[in-house]
């Protein structure tokens, strides 16, 4: 008998909750949807050496760098005065690592726009502008020798990637 009353009570409670919920309506007003994301204009803090290395590692291997490796990599970069050169060497060494996660050339060429957008999101944490999209699309279409590795390296060495 007790189960019967409990069943009736839950039924009434459910009916009340459903009847009180207001239906959400998406108003479009004949405009296109626009995503709001961080702009590069806000990137004005230079990453420290440690931040650069650990973020780069996460971007290329999709896993965190161990503390020991981070210290070793930082020391190696410190041993070379030209920081730009040090970064080039670290990026290049990462690219030669067997565990690196890179899209294949076929993946890149199958859907170039997707590859470009993914790369911007991965490295620069933003969407590409139309001009950027068009530039990279044209470059990849025009030059068959472009590989994801070359694109990733260019992004990792870019000035914007040094800032957050």
């Amino acid at each position, binding site marked *: 008998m007790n189960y019967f009353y409990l069943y009736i009570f839950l039924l009434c409670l459910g009916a009340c909750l459903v009847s009180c919920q207001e239906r959400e309506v998406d108003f479009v007003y004949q405009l296109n949807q626009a995503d709001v994301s961080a702009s590069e204009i806000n990137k004005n803090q230079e990453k420290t050496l440690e931040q650069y290395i650990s973020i780069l590692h996460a971007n290329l291997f999709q896993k965190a760098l161990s503390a020991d490796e981070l210290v070793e990599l930082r020391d190696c970069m410190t041993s070379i*005065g*030209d920081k730009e*050169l040090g970064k*080039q060497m670290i990026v290049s060494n990462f690219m030669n690592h067997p565990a690196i996660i890179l899209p294949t050339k076929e993946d890149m060429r199958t859907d170039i726009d997707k590859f470009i957008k993914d790369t911007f999101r991965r490295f620069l944490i933003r969407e590409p502008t139309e001009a950027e999209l068009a530039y990279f699309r044209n470059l990849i279409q025009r030059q068959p020798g472009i590989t994801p590795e070359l694109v990733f390296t*260019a992004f990792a060495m870019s000035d914007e990637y*040094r800032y957050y």
Partner: protein
Amino acid sequence: MKRREFLRNVSLATAGTIGFPYILPSGRMFAQTTDRMADHVVVVLFAGGVRQQESVLQRYLADSQNESIEGNIMYNLLAGATPNDKVVYGTDSDRPGKDPIPQILTTPLQLQGTLFREMRTSEVIHYNGLNLCVQGNISATQGLKQQPIFPTVFEYIRRHVGVPASKAWFVGSGIGNSIPLLSYSQNEFYGQAYGANFLAPLLTFGEKGFRHLSRAKSYHPEYELSPMEEMKVFLDSSFGRNADVITGINNTEEERYEISQFIENLFVKTEQRQVIQPLVRDNGDLKTIGYACEVLQQFKPTLTVVDLEEVDVCHGSFTDYLRNLHRADHAVGFLWNYIQTQIPEMSDNTILIVVPECGRNLHANPIKDENDWFSYDHSDLNSLRVFGMMAGPGVPQGLAIGQEGVPVGMTADIVPTVADILGVKDEVINQGYLYEGARSLFDRI
């Protein structure tokens, strides 16, 4: 950039370097205020804390261990007879350190140039002492992990002589003790844009370096590097903030390419044990000096500063201190001999300056080593005593200046001396950053 285009650019840049004056940031086209004495200067920071007693005074164990044995264990730098008993500083044979390392320079540097027997530093801490040598001054607020406050000798030379980045090198024995920071200052009118190319070869080409740097890919200049550079330039122009200008030491792309090739080649040479090395290479300083010779051979820098530090073991082992002092002497002898015999562009066109950054105490600490000899720290007045030495074109030969109790010269003199050699002494002094008593060592002769 196509290979042909790259080579053309390099040739043009080289021709420009030779044929045309630099337009300096100061707006001056011709920087030299006086004639240069030499086109190259090599400064060896004979660092780690060297007591006058065991170096220039040649007292071996007499002034430290209460044993009346005197003698010269730095016979590449100094003239004088070696100790005849209790020799521990050489290489090992039937007894540790029994065999002194063969002399490299038949004429010691002291006789080839000028010896300042008794100079002064105002600092007894390594980093501060080194700062004094490279800044020609030191601020009371200067501390470890802090970029030099006043401009360094590299910045003066790069700015006022118009030296490109690849012609100013700082070869460090390691990256500890904030050593890499000495390659440029935080001064707003100089700074990183005029800094030196730093290299700590024992780390770069050591175990860690091999693990993380040696697998760097060599991209094809035309098919890979060129589009990569194109993409980077596009991204940078979109970003609108040239980080290189903000943070770089201004190596040009060609210079950077040359340095990366140099490093790549050195990995191969290190692996094949073909790096230039002195006869004996059983400590870090000797290996560092070998890599410094590689830098000199490749870049023929206008200014090279090499930092040694192994004698600092004296805090806990006097025996090892003597061994490393003997090796530091071997390293400098090797370096000078290599410049004179293996680098024609620098031979007879280089002035060598040798100076410790600080001395060591008069009285021992309580630590005894395997020979029951006491160790020495650096904190008292005796630690302010150092020697200095110069050799090369225009340096008076066989001259010894100053003596115990009559000091002549100070380590802050190094900066105006280098400026003097390269013809910009007045311009550097007139910037007003040097210690007020600092003078060119040539003006003290």
